[in-house]
């Protein structure tokens, strides 16, 4: 757990290694652990990365993760004013507060939701999984079509191998290695981590190795707490709400929280000039997202972000089928995870203080050493899964695919979601039709299923409607107008 938090903070502090990439890198090291320990370690990496990203954001105006970008607006100003230690302290303490509250809310919400889904049959589960799939496709990028194509690609990958209902071979091209399908972990590591490293190799960043500021952590005094409490509450609420919404994530929550903290502040004029509330708000939201994000992930098996998708992949890796019945079938595991999440958040403060120097050292590593070392870690990690070189080869192939998706604007997150939900979507769809003797009406006559399908249509059509409205409002430019008009 401590190692997970420490790696998360260091990984998050290194620009280019987001929370999801840090988790993907840690995933192969959980093979030998039991499911609960593996999940808690990954949750530690996730929580750690949320704080770790803020360290370079505050000290060097260089966000380690996208979610920490909002904190640099005031965090770096505080550093320039000689208050770096205080800014780091506020980030750590308020972030921990947001994380803890979000876990308590998670526990309060997941149990009743888990009981509710006990009434679900195959049509409801299919409709729910389908809903989750379209949500991420709609929110994951600027083009819904690209999101849908990426999601369909992920779904397609789950059809490779032996069909579990009939035993037929599908898309194996006669290769024995593909009988058990595409290894989800290798695919995920390739799409997230290998593609990121290839991107850094193909586009070496313009920035030089940063001049590292020597820093320490100073905890806020009671008077300073009174100054930031309003922003902390705002950040917690925003983080929870945005976290529950699949696809929105930490980046959106921290920027929304920054704006809301300014709106609710008694001294909004200080924002952008070194306001402690400007650090507390986004940092609390950044950490509160984790609990909110885990609500749909654990209650109904739909991951709201890349990091949550990796948590679900870890479940699959340990032979546990994620989905609506996770709560009822693995109650002990879920409650162990809750306890672990609370401990992970409590560990953040001591580990965060101790690990700061290591983060500064990691930030001083030359990019060539960093990229090469990370790729070496990735390939030995994927090999360790089953001591077969096919997995690193798959990671390489998906790294190339992921890089191609990145440069053409296709969201790899949608592919990963397709991979995670694909089996559930297909098997429950086919089971529903077997039960209903081929009647598609089963999805409409079951009220819960009908509601989810309606919601799916709504989510798919909403961006189309927004786009249409925006185009109507956009005046036609002279260049686009017909000649002679």
């Amino acid at each position, binding site marked *: 757990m401590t190692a997970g938090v420490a790696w998360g903070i260091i990984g998050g502090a290194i620009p280019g290694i987001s929370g999801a990439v840090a988790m993907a890198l840690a995933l192969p090291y959980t093979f030998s652990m039991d499911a609960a320990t593996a999940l808690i370690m990954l949750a530690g990496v996730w929580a750690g990365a949320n704080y770790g990203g803020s360290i370079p954001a505050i000290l060097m105006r260089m966000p380690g993760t996208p979610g920490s970008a909002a904190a640099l607006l005031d965090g770096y100003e505080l550093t320039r004013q000689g208050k770096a230690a205080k800014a780091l302290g506020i980030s750590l303490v308020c972030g921990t507060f947001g994380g803890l509250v979000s876990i308590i809310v998670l526990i309060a919400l997941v149990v009743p939701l888990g009981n509710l889904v006990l009434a679900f049959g195959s049509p409801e589960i299919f409709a729910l999984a389908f809903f989750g799939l379209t949500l991420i496709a709609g929110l994951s990028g600027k083009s819904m079509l690209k999101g849908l194509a990426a999601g369909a690609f992920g779904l397609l990958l789950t059809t490779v191998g032996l069909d579990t209902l009939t035993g037929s071979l599908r898309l194996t091209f006669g290769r024995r290695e593909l009988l058990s399908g595409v290894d989800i972990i290798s695919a995920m590591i390739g799409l997230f981590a290998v593609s990121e490293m290839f991107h850094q*190799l193909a586009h070496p960043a313009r920035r030089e190795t940063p001049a590292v500021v020597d820093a320490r952590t100073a905890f806020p005094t009671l008077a300073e707490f009174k100054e930031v409490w309003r922003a902390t509450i705002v950040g917690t609420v925003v983080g929870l709400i945005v976290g529950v919404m699949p696809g929105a994530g930490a980046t959106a929550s921290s920027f929304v929280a920054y704006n809301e903290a300014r709106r609710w502040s008694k001294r909004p004029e200080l924002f952008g000039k070194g306001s402690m509330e400007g650090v507390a708000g986004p940092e609390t939201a950044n950490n509160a997202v984790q609990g909110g994000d885990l609500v749909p992930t654990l209650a109904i098996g739909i991951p709201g972000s890349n990091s949550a998708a990796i948590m679900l992949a870890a479940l699959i890796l340990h032979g546990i089928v994620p989905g609506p019945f996770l709560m009822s079938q693995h109650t002990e595991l879920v409650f162990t995870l809750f306890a672990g999440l609370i401990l992970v958040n409590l560990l953040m403060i001591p580990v965060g203080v101790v690990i700061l120097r290591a983060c500064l050292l990691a930030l001083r590593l030359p990019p060539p050493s960093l990229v*090469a070392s990370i790729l070496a870690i990735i390939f030995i990690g994927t090999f360790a899964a089953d001591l077969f070189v096919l997995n690193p080869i798959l990671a390489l192939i998906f790294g190339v695919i992921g890089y191609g998706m990145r440069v053409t604007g296709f969201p790899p997150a949608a592919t990963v979601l397709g991979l995670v939900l694909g089996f559930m979507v297909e098997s429950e769809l086919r089971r529903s039709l077997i039960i209903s003797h081929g009647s598609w009406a089963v999805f409409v006559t079951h009220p819960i299923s009908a509601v989810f399908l309606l919601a799916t249509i709504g989510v798919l059509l909403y961006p189309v409607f927004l786009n249409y409205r925006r185009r109507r409002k956009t005046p036609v430019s002279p260049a686009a107008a017909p000649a002679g008009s």
Partner: protein
Amino acid sequence: MDSAVVRKDVIAAAVLVAFGAAVVAVGLKIPLGVATDPLGPRTFPVALGAGIAICGVLLVAGMLLFRSAPAGPGLLGDMDPEDEAAAEAGPFSLTRLVGAVAITAGYLAAFEPVGYLLSTWGYVLALMMLHGGAPGRSLVSTPPLVTLVLYLTFKYGLRIPVPEGILAPLLSR
């Protein structure tokens, strides 16, 4: 719309159509299954292949219909950190990209026959040289250090056997 973006989208659309059509062609060879399973094992892959191809067609159609419209703002409007990250990235180098993929493919080919220690040493060194800008000190120290730390972690820490390749006689002493 930026011509580079249009070119990328056209290429992406062509790849989607070709890939989707290939999946449909291969998918149609999957057996139909049993009568009690109305969809059978064939429908899902074929439908997804067709869906991917349709996405490619719609992508091109969308470009032709709405090519003069400006791109919509992202979720975070003008504060999107992904845009900032893109702005920070340096110029694209095809040589570096192809080189990285080729070096990695070579590394994985040598992984078992040559062994972990030698292949990883060479891999890390080759990638650092490909990236460029590494100080000479790093080129000498990083590859053996990374290789040894990972080897010891996996072999003795996690007790996972690592391929020893041509060094097997030496390492098994």
